[in-house]
């Protein structure tokens, strides 16, 4: 039989093909060009219309293209002027009058003025606005208090609120408040999200679906011009692949490094950046029924769970132990007199015995993953083990994120005793207002899924939200945190430190507590 010559020829051909392929110029694996920063993102953006999106992943691109009337001062969550140069608040806290920055143009050349601001807020809030159909605008309720937006003169705009609402200035700095070009919305309508036009340090150049969003330096920028000629955002959903791209030099900067991969970047050639942010990871306890209806059992759960072990061993040091409902990133409103519940299983057992909850069976809702949820399954099992150790019988039920929200948000009554949850907000008002007031029980449209109720807390939260004096607000929030910590409606577990890795060719990069990604000052060699 005479097969050999054929295979030999085949082998030769195959070898030649391999040689050809590997011998091709090494372009794709060559280093990324100088002056162009390539960022590894966690997902494809949904849209680049700031009013239409909700994900931090999209915000990271948006804040480089657009600006709001206000912004967060670098390194803090305090508000400073941006497209507005100043503002007056009326005595009763319901009228905000902004003076706008002169000489600012959108990337399409149209001027930024009071009309443009009015167009932005009317588009989002007024159902009869001709461009309201370019939505939906899922986070427009951030500005739900706005009753009217008026053009006072070309460079002055006035907002009238239906009630005093202290987070208004900070919400204007949130990406939902970024200002888009009215002319571009009119031109592109539904497709504006793929043709974004703002006033920021970068202009939009190109969006290749699932490959890259390319931004270029805005040479006509009113402030200091950006340090790089272009920024490319690449969506790389799989975290292992993202790490591999970073190691291979295919990207210059990656966000949300998995805790277990951080070690791979500890050597030369990379730097790791960390920044605590306004994030809190907690367990909602069902205070309406079952063992957690008793405050002592809720406190026992806080004592029984070894939070140090969770942040150091499960999360590899990418988080710190949470003390109460407010993250320390809100420095001005944070009560630093509070210490986290210590890990004390003996004390937990004593409290459980006192409450007569020995051997109680608990149903624990765990999610597979979700926004801000970190590593929910290993964290859930660690918590289960700690609670078993003090005598509970814990049964875990695991759900995919959207299903999980569908189970938890309507309330835990009749279903579960505890559930994992995490929040990231850019003001200290939103989370407690939506998740700790008795008026925020699920049947009233809030997120208080564990049915916590304390009249004093309700009163403090209402007062803090309407007060316009920051010191007074801080005082009220500190008092609230002390009461909530004592009442223990949640198990306070962790505050996440956002991280990123850059190659040594990237300079001047820092993360912001707001979790946004400002790349204006970054230099790439």
């Amino acid at each position, binding site marked *: 039989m005479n097969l050999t010559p054929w295979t030999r020829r085949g082998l030769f051909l195959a070898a030649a093909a391999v040689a050809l392929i590997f011998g091709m110029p090494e372009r794709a694996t060559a280093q990324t*060009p100088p002056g162009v920063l390539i960022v590894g993102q966690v997902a494809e953006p949904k849209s680049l219309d700031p009013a239409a999106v909700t994900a931090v992943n999209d915000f990271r691109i948006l804040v480089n293209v657009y600006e709001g009337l206000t912004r967060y001062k670098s390194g803090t969550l305090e508000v400073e002027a941006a497209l507005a140069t100043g503002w007056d608040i009326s005595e009763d806290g319901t009228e905000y009058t902004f003076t706008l920055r002169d000489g600012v143009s959108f990337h399409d050349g149209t001027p930024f003025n009071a009309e443009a601001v009015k167009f932005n807020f009317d588009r989002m809030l007024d159902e009869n606005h001709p461009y309201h159909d370019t939505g939906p605008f*899922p986070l427009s309720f951030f500005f739900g208090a706005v009753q009217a937006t008026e053009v006072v003169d070309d460079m002055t705009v006035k907002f009238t609120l239906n009630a005093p609402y202290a987070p208004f200035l900070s919400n204007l700095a949130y990406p939902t408040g970024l200002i888009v070009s009215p002319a571009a919305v009119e031109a592109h309508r539904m497709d504006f999200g793929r043709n974004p036009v703002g006033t920021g340090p970068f202009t939009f150049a190109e969006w290749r679906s699932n490959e890259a969003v390319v931004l270029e330096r805005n040479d006509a920028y009113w402030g200091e011009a950006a340090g790089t000629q272009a920024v490319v955002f690449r969506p790389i959903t799989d975290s292992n692949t993202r790490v591999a*791209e970073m190691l291979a030099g295919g990207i210059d900067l990656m966000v949300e490094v998995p805790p277990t991969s951080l070690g791979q970047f500890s050597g030369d050639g990379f730097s790791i950046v960390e920044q605590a942010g306004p994030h809190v990871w907690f367990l909602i306890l069902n205070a309406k029924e079952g063992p957690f209806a008793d405050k002592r059992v809720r406190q026992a759960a806080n004592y029984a769970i070894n939070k140090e072990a969770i942040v150091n061993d499960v999360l590899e040091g990418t988080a710190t132990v949470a003390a109460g409902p407010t993250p320390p990133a809100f420095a001005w409103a944070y009560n630093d007199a509070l210490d986290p519940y210590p890990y004390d299983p003996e004390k937990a057992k004593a409290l459980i015995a006192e409450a007569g909850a020995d051997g109680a069976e608990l149903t624990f809702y765990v999610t597979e993953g979700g926004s801000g949820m970190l590593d929910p399954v290993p964290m859930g099992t660690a918590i289960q083990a700690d609670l078993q150790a003090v005598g509970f019988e814990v049964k875990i039920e695991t759900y995919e994120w959207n299903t999980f929200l569908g189970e938890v948000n309507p309330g835990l009554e009749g279903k579960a005793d505890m559930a994992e949850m995490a929040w990231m907000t850019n003001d200290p008002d939103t989370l407690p207002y939506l998740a700790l007031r008795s008026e925020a029980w699920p049947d009233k449209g809030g997120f208080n899924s564990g049915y916590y109720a304390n009249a004093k807390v309700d009163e403090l939260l209402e007062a803090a939200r309407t007060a316009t004096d920051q010191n007074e607000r801080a005082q009220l929030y500190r008092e609230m945190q002390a009461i909530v910590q004592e009442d223990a409606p949640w198990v306070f577990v962790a505050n996440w430190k956002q991280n990123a890795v850059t190659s040594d060719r990237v300079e001047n990069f820092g993360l912001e507590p707001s979790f946004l990604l400002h790349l204006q000052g970054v230099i790439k060699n």
Partner: protein
Amino acid sequence: MGGYILKRLISAVPVLFGITIIVFLIMSLIPGDPATAILGSYATPENVEKLNRELGLDKPMVQRYFIWLGNMLTGDFGRSFSLNRPVIDEVLERFNATMILSGTSFVLCSIFGILAGVISAARQYGFADKAITFVVLIGISVPSFFLGMMMILLFAVHLRWLPVSGMYAIYGGGDISDLIRHLIMPALALAAVATGVVARLSRSAMLEVLRQDFVRTARANGVPERRVIMGHALRVAMVSILPVLGIQAGFVLSGAVYIEIVFQWPGVGRMLVDAILARDLLVVQGGVVFVAACYVLFNIAVDVAQSLLDPRIKT
């Protein structure tokens, strides 16, 4: 023959119709809804209801199904709310990428699988057979996503011969050689399992044919062995190999989901996974129907090819 093809095409219509019902029902019945997915932590019942109304999801299910079906028949697949663009644009663009990947893998697994099977059969129990069987069994046993990750670590991170992920280089790419460099690893990883399956089945099909009388006659007549195997025997064996290839085409399409995620390939599999997680109903529904239609058409083509090879199959 034309009548046969037409008959098969008509019989595909109820299949596709059934698929539209199944995919619509699944997407409607799974827990979680688009508004919750969009709003995330801010999904209060009030916000969810308002957003669902704006997305047109407050209508009864049956009504929504017929609106969707009616629009689709006129070529309108709707607009994706998670990608903010028409579904059909996204599906076509993504399907193109998947076809490049799956098509290459399919060609690779067909050629190498049949070749390996033929050599194995011709050299039954010889060294070549044992070596091929060994390699093929490894190929079948290793999960493709694992193989993919290991290839990335070896060839992209350590040796730096090939790019880690993506379809084209971000800068300076875009031509065919750039595409091939990006395609090598995902295509091989995806083809590995399918090649193994094709090789195993080709081997047994060939062995069966080689035992038949006409092969003995051909050999007795002094036909060169190479022609006996590649000409006479393989042609007959192809009748039973072809349907296996049809099934493998489905396999490389569905296996592409994992590979597209590992290699960040902008294909339809990754699109569907993302869309399911975001509860982007129209993208999932449109994408599944489109892929299913292609799969059905491909299998009709396989059946037609088979009937050409084997006149005994009734047309």
